[in-house]
């Protein structure tokens, strides 16, 4: 049984915008799935429908086998959601926010208070439990939303850009926490614009564009689709002109740095052989960009250049 199963999901807003154009998606139980796509691709609409904040136009949604239309309460009980925008009552105390949320799911007060302590400690917010939410920093507010979403111990946690605007240190501690709860059995669906985050955390990736799923595969399989990777090499000695590197496209970034594109058909050892032959000594090497980011840009650009089937279909 899948944690989430979506079939032919369509959402057309009152404005006429077709946000989802027949989405099919399966997220296995226990998975850590990245839901990616450019702005306006339909990710938030999909999450909105699954969490019942948005009404679907047509299609089927099942959460752990429960049908959204017929077993709404079972679906809601199974899901914890961390929305993209801060939606906390900023005048309320941190502890009240989490305890009340548990109460809304029918968790009795005593258990809710114990659970609140666990969640707030895990997310390093216990010391701020008596403070109003408005006094928290941006990163703390995001962590509070995660704590709130976990209060009823959901089997499926959906996070819509949970680390947006969060500094790298807090982001990494949040990653660690998400890895832990995933390892403990919680299925996680994550949308993010930080593709490094998706690549580091997720085992499964679905890319949505123009309301359709254009990629739905295991992360490792998706990354093998990359045709080439770009590396930045720091040189031991400065060079004025770049010598030819047989089979590799390269450019001089500065007199101490070159950028080289390594096709998937070539080994990096071959690049080093070419560099040695050209008399270049390399001190260090790093990826120019995140690999998933490269693939994402390639896929979504390719789709943007293709004729829009929906608008063509609308033409007389």
């Amino acid at each position, binding site marked *: 049984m899948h944690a989430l199963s979506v079939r032919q999901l369509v959402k057309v807003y009152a404005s006429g915008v077709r946000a989802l154009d027949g989405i099919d998606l399966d997220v296995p139980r226990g998975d850590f799935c990245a839901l990616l796509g450019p702005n306006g691709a339909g990710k938030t609409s999909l999450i909105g429908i699954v969490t019942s*904040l*948005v009404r679907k136009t047509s299609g089927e949604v099942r959460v752990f086998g429960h049908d959204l239309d017929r077993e709404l309460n079972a679906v809601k009980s199974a*899901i914890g*959601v961390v929305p993209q925008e801060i939606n906390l*009552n900023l005048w309320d105390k941190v502890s*009240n926010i989490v305890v009340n949320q548990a*109460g*809304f799911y*029918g968790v*009795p007060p005593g258990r809710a208070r114990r659970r609140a302590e666990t969640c707030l400690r895990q997310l390093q917010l216990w010391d701020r439990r008596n403070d109003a939410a408005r006094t928290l920093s941006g990163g703390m507010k995001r962590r509070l939303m995660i704590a709130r979403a976990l209060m009823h111990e959901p089997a499926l946690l959906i996070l819509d850009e949970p680390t947006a605007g969060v500094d790298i240190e807090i982001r990494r501690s949040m990653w660690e926490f998400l890895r832990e709860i995933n390892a403990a059995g919680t299925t996680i669906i994550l949308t993010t614009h930080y593709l490094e985050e998706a690549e580091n955390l997720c085992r499964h990736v679905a890319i949505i564009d123009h309301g359709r799923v254009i990629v739905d595969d295991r992360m490792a399989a998706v990354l093998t689709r990359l045709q080439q990777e770009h590396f930045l090499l720091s040189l031991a000695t400065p060079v004025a002109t770049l010598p030819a590197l047989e089979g590799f496209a390269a450019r001089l970034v500065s007199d101490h740095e070159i950028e080289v594109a390594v096709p998937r058909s070539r080994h990096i050892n071959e690049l080093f052989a070419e560099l040695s032959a050209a008399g270049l000594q390399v001190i260090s090497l790093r990826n120019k960009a995140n690999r998933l980011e490269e693939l994402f840009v390639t896929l979504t650009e390719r789709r943007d250049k293709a004729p829009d089937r929906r608008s063509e279909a609308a033409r007389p």
Partner: protein
Amino acid sequence: MSLRQQAVALATLSRKEYVRVVRIWLQTVLPPAINMGLYFLIFGELIGARIGRMDGFDYPQYIAPGLIMMAVITNAYGNVVSSFFSAKIHRHLEEMLVAPMSAATIALGHMVGGIVRGILVGLMVAVVARLFTPLPLVHPLVTAAVFLLCAAIFSLAGLVNGILAQHFDDISIIPSFVLQPLTYLGGVFYSITLLPDLAQQLSKLNPILYIVNAFRYGMLGVSDIDIGAAFAMMLVSMVVLFVVCVVLLERGTRIRD
């Protein structure tokens, strides 16, 4: 979610609303008491002394039940409409919408918040009124029942307004242009027997007239309206408003895309 879990959710929402009323008591409870104190001072003492007796009572005593109801109506309504609309605008209403709370639980929880504020303010106004005039309780059970029903009805009316409102203007239009005129014309300051026949008949279309008179009957033992009719009107209004709230919440009208 089981009935027991719904009860936990209802208790949670009710407590949340109650805490909100008490936390901001300077905004919720104190101003109406001061406001009504001024009504008693001006209409009761200064002008009322020249008006003389009405239905056999001193004017300040005659208007006291109506002023208490006026405070209950305004505050029960205002509490729920502002709480719900604020939660909708700031999006923390989603905390309830993503949870498996039934629409009836959400409606009842907000209603409890409105009733708490209505009762607190009503009691404060009664204390203020007592400084100006004796307050008899001829029919205590009727008084208590009307007190509760009035607060419940206008809490639910406020919830309907909060659900349908899309802009801040939408939550001030009804109180300013509907509720306030109906309250002033609802027999708070006068007996409708003073009005010409046509005006009396028109006044009987005003639901607030029934509430004010039922409450006056509970306190003073006099009413322009049949008490049975007043209770029937109040009970029907409460049930109809509750059903409207539940239907709107279940449909997600103006709260779900």
